[in-house]
């Protein structure tokens, strides 16, 4: 699931800016998860969020390709 939910967003856009993979975008005054498949689960958005609005999960939302299973 990667970045999982945003609740209590104040619309400061810190997460949008600090996501290396452009996963989060703004919808009016609220940030939303626009491209979950590209989330690398690095938690930068969560760590930059001033009001701790972001919840993360360790699962990727698309199949993961590994050198061995």
């Amino acid at each position: 699931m990667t970045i999982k939910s945003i609740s209590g967003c104040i619309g400061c856009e810190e997460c949008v800016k600090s996501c290396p993979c452009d996963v989060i975008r703004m919808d009016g005054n609220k940030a939303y998860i626009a491209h979950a498949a590209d989330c690398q689960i690095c938690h930068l958005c969560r760590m930059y969020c001033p009001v701790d609005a972001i919840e993360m999960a360790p699962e990727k939302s698309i199949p993961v390709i590994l050198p061995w299973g």
Partner: protein
Amino acid sequence: MTDLNDTTSPTRREFLALSGATAGIASLGMAAWAQNNVEIDVDAITNTDHVTDVLVIGGGMAGLFAAVKAHDAGAATMIVSKGRLGASGLTPFGKGFFVFDPDTESGTIDDFVDTVSRSALGTNNPTYTRQLAVHSMARAQELRDWGFFDQTLANRPFIKPIEERNIPLLERVVVTHLIKEDGRIAGAAGFRVDAEETVTIRAKSVILCTGAGGFKPSGFPLGDLTHDGTIMAYEIGAKVTGKEWNDGHSTRSVNPAACYDNWGDMFERVPSTNGVEVHHDLGVDINYRAYVTGNPVSGGTGAVQPTEAVDGGPYVPEEFQNVGQPSGDGEGGALGAPPSGEGGAPGGPPPGFAASANVGGASAGMAIHKSEGLVPFDDRCASNIAGLYAAGDALGSHMAGGIYTQIGSSLAGSAVQGAIAGEAAAEFADTVETPVISDDRLIEFTDEILAPLRREAGYGPAWVTQTLQGIMIPNFVLYIKKASMMTAALAYVEELRDHHAPMLRAANMHELRLAHETRNMILSAEMKMRASLMRTESRCSHYRLDYPEVDDENWRAWINIYRGTDGAMQLEKQPFDTWPT
């Protein structure tokens, strides 16, 4: 806080979110060939043109110092970054910063350079190794003044010197093309992800601080690093090196993509400095072990390490065999453990770390830090294209060699090289006029940039990326190399290059970025396979099952890659301890 050990069944909320995400995959670019339902008016996309003396591309550790030093040397300087200053690429995740402090080190800088050269089996460029040690302390002091060692997040300390100097900063701009006019660098072109806008920048000199890259693998924060700088420079004739080396970070077999979780508390650590500590951290030996003995391979930071010997495999010089082996509280260099080159401070395993099965390939597609990228033509980060410089992971300086040697040298090396490149680029800019680029030329670039948005149908970039991952990431292709398999993989990659890259579609600016990144990864994969095929020996992090020995007679040489006059990829040897001509 996320519970690392929480494997219970999903709650109702999680379940709802899960099904939402699954629906998302179907609609978001994972389809292969499909109609391109463009969400924006492509013809309404405007262009913004900028002019500067020195253009720094990239907002990580190298880009920071390149911009600061170019500005301080008197050049009008501008930074453009795909992400946010201090919050993109690998910079946010590097926590160790190597400092050579003559007052506390027992050896001299000469000793340090010799030790690195012995561990690197000659693959390092001693000029750059020395430079790292000489300048590391001064760079660390500047970072300390800006507050870098007081926090977890690098954006604020990075923004401080940039704001003090009023250096223009363009964030969230994807640069896709370098512009060369009259035989020298003239600028760059790209687009904004947040606005329907292309961006062109005319510059007297350009410094690539674009980092290295990978194949968007799982378990390492490389999602935004796709060798963009290397590929842009290759396309205008720059020479590229180091593609055969392999970074060997591993990840957990449970939730392998969760790089934050798999690194314990490291992503939340405050950066710190460390002194001389030279390793021969392979990382890829876990891949050999898995190849020979099967899975799963236990290990990883804080875990009990496998002890039974495995015959063969990558060679580790005797002097360095015990360095970093677990001694109860060691962490770096342990089999399968993430090399601590990124700089976890030495010490015990991070809290909350439970031993579990590991899987390799977390950083698939990335070589050793500072080993891949543009070939340096002097000791000041210059490429073979006049006015084009590179620093940090975008420069194939071979500062540490084709293997992790000095702990914490990744961040420190980027800082040191960024500063040197900044000054060199400013000096160059002082000697030339602002380049003239005709409007027609600029339109050529913007047309090429926007092409995926204009296709009526095409391949989804995410699907092509996954296909490329399927070709390149398997252990028996990328890590345990042999000619037959690499030849086969290369054939696949060439197919993607010729018949998929030109037909990538994008429905919006986000997908446009993915399309360009995907294309860069394909070319990068081709370089990786060709260089790996050419190096018919095993050395450092390059391991050939069909050529398992170090071959000093033929291979005391780096491999440089460049585009031939016919457009095909050419490879050449450059002997160790020499400069290219």
